């Protein structure tokens, strides 16, 4: 889906993302900026509304910052997904080592 950003009347921005971006990615980005932005979802669309919690105007740089965060969370999900088996291997081996060390102590 084509990405479009519209800034309406400087009060809020409408931001949309391609299908590959999950709701989780957007919600995590929204949470991390929750002291600055109020992020709302338009039902049955892929539109997200970006408002500033202090009521000030949403600048293009704000939208760019939010968008970058969303894509970063998407990248984190991808990294996590592709390395899940290694992480499980490392953690289980580590805690097995700790357990054996405690038993021998």
């Amino acid at each position, binding site marked *: 889906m084509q990405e479009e950003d519209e800034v309406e009347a400087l009060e809020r921005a409408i931001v949309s993302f391609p299908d590959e971006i999950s709701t989780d990615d957007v919600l*995590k980005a929204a*949470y*991390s*900026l*929750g*002291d*600055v932005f109020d992020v709302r979802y338009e039902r049955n669309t892929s539109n997200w509304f970006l408002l500033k919690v202090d009521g000030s105007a949403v600048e293009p740089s704000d939208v760019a910052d939010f968008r*970058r965060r969303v894509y*970063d*969370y998407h*990248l*984190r999900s991808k*990294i*996590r997904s*592709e*390395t*899940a088996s*290694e*992480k499980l*291997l*490392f*953690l289980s*081996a*580590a*805690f097995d*080592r*700790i357990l054996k*060390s*405690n038993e021998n102590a």
Partner: protein
Amino acid sequence: MKIHLPLDQDKIPFTWLPFDFERLENGSVIVVGVAGDWELLSGDEFEELTEESAISYHLAKRLAARHIIRISDEDAVNELVPLKIATRFRDLSDGPGLHIFVVTLRCEHSCGYCQVSRKSTSGSVFDMSEEIALASLQVAFQSPSKTLKIEIQGGEPLLNFSLIRFIVTEAKRLNENAHKDLQFVIASNLALLDDEVVAFSREHQIFFSTSLDGPPELHNRNRHRPGLNSWELVKDGVKRIREELGPNFVSALMTTTVESLRFDTQIIDEYVRQGFHEIFLRPMSPYGFAVRGKGYDSYDGADWMHFYIRGLEHVISLNRKGYEIKELMASLYLQKCLTNENGRYVDLSTPTGAGLGALVYNYDGKVYVSDEGRMLKEMGDDRFVLGSVFEHRLVDLLTTESFLEVVEESFAPSNPMCADCALRLYCGSDPVFHYTTQRDLVGFKPVSSFCQRTRSIVPYLLRRYSEDDFCRDLFDRWASQ
């Protein structure tokens, strides 16, 4: 670990190992592996890592050494990474090693930022009794920790010196069967240090921790006492302890107030003048009189960060000029970043160090997860009371529903924002702080000054480490000491 890379290839194929990343304001990116090894990349290098299937030789070498990527069929990482993780978390089952005894709430100072909610010197009803002290020691010795550090606090603990004698002698008696590494510290303003205290401390190898807020005009303004001579008494007390017990038997801590913000380098210079080789540039805590007097709200996180960075750079410059002095906030973070050690600092642990690493035995026999939890009770909130030394064993205290909730909520990999943060292994949780400031054990991290501190200090330290050879050597020493 040696990385064997084919020298005849321009680009090296690789696969990711588990890692997280954080972008910095200058465009660079910190990448951190699952064991805590990190690398600072340029924006272009990060794009190469995340968008290409083969990367340049030099970048591959750096990233493989940090276990961010795997090269070809290299298997050693399958042993090395778990070993590093195990090292970092091996102390989790040790049990509390720090046991704080609040022997009195009486104090002859009247510091405006007092977190203890001190009482006047005449109220002996606020003194711990021998019965409570003995019951507290019996709980402390139930800890499986091989080291027991007994820290005696107040108010001003020397106002109840007879009980300190009792605690030390009884602890040593109990240790005849327990065989733990037993250490004693008295946290005192040193105003009441006399021949009896010095002689007893020398006999039993007791350390002292005192408060030194800076030069006399700042210290005496912060730490009011009749005669306005708190600084002079600290100076004389420190000198006496060094001469009669030994040069390493006294340390000092400062508290940052609004007034302190104007004295960043002068505070450090005062520590140098008084012969200290460590300083802990701490923010003000949101407890006790510091809140009632609105001191806590009188400056914001950004003010403190500017103060901290100026202070840290001054410490670094002093080291360049040949005076060895360590900044302890930085050293705590650096130990986590540059070694596989987690440190045992209660306020910078996940799961929380409160309760798991330290316990506080109040003058009335109640037990708390931390000093801050006890201070909260003095402010009217008993959320972090674990129980009583007369009613509960150690195992009972650490398995209450309310405490288990605190531990569960303090597990950073499960917390929003923390779960995705690259700096998670270098940080902590501090549920007591978040409960105090936000009425929530987890806390909403975008407005958490605890979170902002880590996210400001760690990238700053890692940048200085990467850019400056002197800082690299200095920080390596701080991390390993």
